[in-house]
């Protein structure tokens, strides 16, 4: 009798949850490993500005860079339209990150006898290390005309597959007002704490858990950090201290060619204020309200895209702040998430009898504190603590803290080359993530560690 078949029914269900959750985590990590984070030297070349003009430390934006972005990639110098550029100028940049990294997991599901799955399975520590690359990120972005901007962002992952992560056109300063800008296409949700411009790179720390967290058993395909398809209305004050955005988005987590007949809504509002001697401080609030189908019409048993039915809702709401104390700054983030009971239990909405006893919609709270010390524009020290805690499990039988996540990350980035043409950073980082109760066999805590060092370069 192998280890797997010795589990009871309840344990088998728990095992299935854990395995499904592990798949989600794996998919998320893979997605995030391919997710880009940019400084855009194409803009530096266009405007003859160094990375440090727009970034605290690239890719993290400072307020000057944020205002530039809010203006539709325009400095508003009267020379923003492409007609003012040399004919040979092409607004494109490349980024890749050759690294050496070490990954470890203390509860990986392995065959007891290698190459022999019939011999049963166990949990083992797996450690791998070696050289790697991040793939290739390409950004083309700029202006088509005064007050009309665009971005196209294909990314080549390290398996050689292309993903079109971003493509949009933006009409800026409509009615001569910076409060009216319209963006249409696929884009990152507007927020000051951006996963695209995050400074961390490791597999466990290089993305925000809160942006992608899905409770165990939930089948809501959504991540705050995922690029979404839709239209966004946004506006800002002249120095971008006050900002808003409202977006209407497809209910399909940004998947192209899978139309939906329903829409999600996202809104974000930010206010900045100055404190003498300390600098600019920012607070923001956001909310995402969406729905997902729980089943589809089918043809020969296969779902027909765009025919989702039995939609049920979910929401993500939260607050964030950016706090500056001279060279030291903190980013704080809080999120409350909730999913409908059918989404939470992966059950069709027309089959409520399949819900487990006591099933409810799952809710959770999460957040992080990220600290940076910018010694000078060419050296920044980093740390982050992130947590997600379930407050209500979808399945009443599950332990209360099942799936809770805690991640600690530290690192630094040094930019020996920082010109108005290109940038090179040396990056070192260590991150450790602990997930409660998700070890595939024993249900103990699952711990993953990731160490990375490498060159991050942009041209």
């Amino acid at each position, binding site marked *: 009798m192998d280890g797997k078949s010795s589990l009871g029914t309840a344990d088998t269900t728990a095992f299935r949850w854990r395995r499904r959750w592990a798949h989600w985590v794996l998919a998320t990590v893979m997605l995030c490993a391919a997710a880009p984070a940019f400084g855009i030297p194409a803009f530096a070349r266009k*405007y*003859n*500005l*160094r990375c*440090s*003009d727009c970034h605290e430390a690239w890719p993290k934006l*400072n*307020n*000057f860079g*944020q*205002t530039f972005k809010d203006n539709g990639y325009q*400095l*508003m*110098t*009267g*020379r923003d339209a492409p007609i003012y550029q040399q004919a040979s100028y092409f607004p494109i940049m490349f980024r890749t990150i050759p690294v050496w990294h070490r990954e470890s997991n203390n509860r990986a599901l392995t065959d007891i006898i290698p190459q022999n799955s019939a011999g049963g399975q166990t949990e083992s520590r797996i450690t791998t290390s070696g050289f790697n690359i991040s793939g290739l990120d390409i950004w083309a972005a700029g202006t088509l*005309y*005064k*007050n*009309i901007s665009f971005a196209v962002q294909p990314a080549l992952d390290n398996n050689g597959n292309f993903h079109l992560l971003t493509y949009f056109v933006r*009409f*800026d*300063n*409509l*009615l*001569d007002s910076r409060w009216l800008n319209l963006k249409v296409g696929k884009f990152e949700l507007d927020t000051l704490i951006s996963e695209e411009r995050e400074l961390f790179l490791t597999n466990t720390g290089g993305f925000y858990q809160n942006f992608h967290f899905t409770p165990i058993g939930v089948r809501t395909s959504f991540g705050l950090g995922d690029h979404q398809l839709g239209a966004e209305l946004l506006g800002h004050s*002249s*120095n*971008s201290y006050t900002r808003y955005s409202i977006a209407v988005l497809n209910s399909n987590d940004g998947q192209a060619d899978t139309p939906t007949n329903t829409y999600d809504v996202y809104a974000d509002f930010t206010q900045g204020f*100055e404190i*003498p*001697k300390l*600098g*600019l401080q920012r607070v923001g609030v956001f909310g995402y309200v969406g729905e997902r189908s729980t089943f589809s019409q089918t043809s020969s048993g296969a779902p027909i895209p765009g025919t989702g039915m039995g939609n049920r809702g979910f929401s993500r709401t939260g607050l964030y702040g950016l706090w500056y104390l001279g060279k030291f700054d903190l980013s704080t983030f809080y999120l409350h998430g909730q999913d409908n009971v059918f989404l939470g239990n992966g059950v069709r909405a027309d089959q409520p009898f399949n819900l487990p006893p006591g099933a409810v919609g799952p809710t959770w709270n999460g957040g992080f504190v990220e600290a940076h010390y910018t010694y*000078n*524009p060419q050296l920044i020290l980093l740390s982050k603590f992130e947590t997600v805690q379930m407050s209500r499990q979808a399945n009443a039988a599950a332990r209360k803290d099942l799936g809770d996540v805690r991640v600690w990350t530290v690192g630094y980035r040094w930019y020996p080359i920082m*010109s*108005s043409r290109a940038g090179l950073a040396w990056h070192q980082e260590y991150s450790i993530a602990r997930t409660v109760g998700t070890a595939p066999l024993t249900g103990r805590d699952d711990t993953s560690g990731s160490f990375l060092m490498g060159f991050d370069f942009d041209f």
Partner: protein
Amino acid sequence: MILKGSGVALTVLLSCSVFGFAQQSKIDKLTGNAKSGKALYVRYCITCHGPHGDGTGENAPHLDPKPRDFTKATFKCRSTPSGELPTDSDLYNTISRGIYNSAMPPWKPLTQQQRADLVAYIKTFSTRFQEEPPSASVVIPPEPARSADSVHRGAELFQSLNCWSCHGKEGRGNGPSALTLTDAKGYPILPFDLTRGSHFKCGGTSSDLFKDLTTGLDGTPMPSFSTALRPDQIWDVVHYIQTLNEESSRGFFHFVKSESRTHESRPQ
């Protein structure tokens, strides 16, 4: 011995006080600090203006117009008479506003304190700020109502003062002298096209234009008319210049309008 020591101490004290004065800026209630300004300068300004503030940063060869040479302490946008140093507020306003149609962007996204700190640091590049007393801003009298008569008088002055020789008969910056002009460092410089929008280099309000005509733009061929014209005549010229502005920027809708105009005027 005591006297000698006192003398040294006094010299040091005076030096410190003079130097200390130059290391600061005052913009209304803000006091800028040069030490903080230096870090900001290195981050935001050094690529164009250079580590020594002489306008020879790594980008300078690619820029037109060239970055300002702070060591000369010659500034276009001032509220002070021609040839005098700008006030701290003048420098602060230039940083905040940027210089339209140049590589100098508006730095309003920086905090007020940061901009004040930058002013303090920029002043350290020239000893003039330590040696010369602070200049006073010119007085701008209240603007009279803009009328057809005022505009007409302004148009006549525009012709009689030979403004057209640089700015052109219609203010398009294409006068007969336009291509011969150079700035104080010998670089070619074009006269401003007065028909292009309302974004003048030193601000687009009526008061800004009055100030430009009164103080001139130091370092450029644009002279001061403070002695050639009375204040009411300067206002007349301001009113005339404002009629030359053909279009205000209307973003996307302006684009559509101007594009359709272009298509309509295209020969079939």
